[in-house]
């Protein structure tokens, strides 16, 4: 069968792997019957394919495999725990702090009772909310940094 070996060769790979269409497969069948160069390429590639398939490489030990699976799945639970804890903290601290600051800034107790002994000085009314906000921002910044580091630190599991 008339053909260009250079052009046909990629089809030989597809033929070997069973990835050709029926018409291409029939074409290659005919070429392999006629062309010595192409049939040599086919035979050598077949031999290489078998050789690569039977190579042996370093493998994981049973202990390594089991530890890997355990580490991967145990992380899933702790992630859910972290998510719930952080959400709860944000709700309690966020709502609680906002309520507290609102009470202090508006001097709610004094407004409610009208008694002078309940009146808060200005530095408390402005200072306490500022302090609460500052502590909250610092706390959550450090918390997120630690969580990020814990997830990306390659040496978390290294025992010294």
């Amino acid at each position, binding site marked *: 069968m008339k053909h260009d070996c250079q052009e046909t060769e990629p089809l030989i790979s597809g033929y070997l792997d069973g990835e050709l269409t029926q018409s291409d497969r029939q074409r290659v069948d005919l070429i392999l019957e006629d062309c010595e160069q192409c049939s040599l390429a086919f035979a050598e590639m077949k031999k290489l*394919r078998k*050789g690569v398939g039977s190579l042996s490489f*370093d493998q994981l030990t049973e202990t390594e495999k089991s530890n890997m699976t355990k580490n991967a799945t145990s*992380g899933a639970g702790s992630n859910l725990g972290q998510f719930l804890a952080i959400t709860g903290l944000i709700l309690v601290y966020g709502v609680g702090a906002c309520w507290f600051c609102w009470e202090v800034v508006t001097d709610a107790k004094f407004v409610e009772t009208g008694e002078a002994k309940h009146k808060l000085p200005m530095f408390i009314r402005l200072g306490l909310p500022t302090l609460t906000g500052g502590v909250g921002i610092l706390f959550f910044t450090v918390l997120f940094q630690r969580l990020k580091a814990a997830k990306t630190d*390659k040496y978390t599991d290294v025992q010294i």
Partner: protein
Amino acid sequence: MTADSHLPSRDELEALSESGFALAIQLLSRHEDAADVVQDSLRKLVHSGRYKAQKGSPLAWFLKVVRNGALDTLRQRRPNDDEAVARLAATAPAPDIAVEREELAGIMRRQLEAMPVSQREIILLRDFHDLSYTEIAEVLGIAPGTVMSRLHRARNELRKRMKKYLK
């Protein structure tokens, strides 16, 4: 995978870690590096929840993650590569002596390791991991139509390198 679970079962994870490690060790040649890559890939698989959501074969998706991790490791390792290759070449026996000493499998493995990663990986994905062309395209992130020609070029390169041992 159990029907009510978003996570793969322990057996599935172990099977994936075996295949993933095989690819990682083939690309990285160092046990510790390959184990790190597989561990990271397993974490990604479990935490991303994509195992159930992804469309194609789970193995192809996992091998893609492992391959990307291995390539990242290779990129980070590159400054020392020349030194490692030089050390390997220095300890490797001359070809003729090697033929007498080593089996064909050893020679083939060494020739594969000496090939560019892009050629080595496509041969291994097909002939060792037995992936279809569609799965190979998914792992490598290339068009399925280009797999056959790329694979053929890679096989031809290996064939040239192994020419004298194939007779």
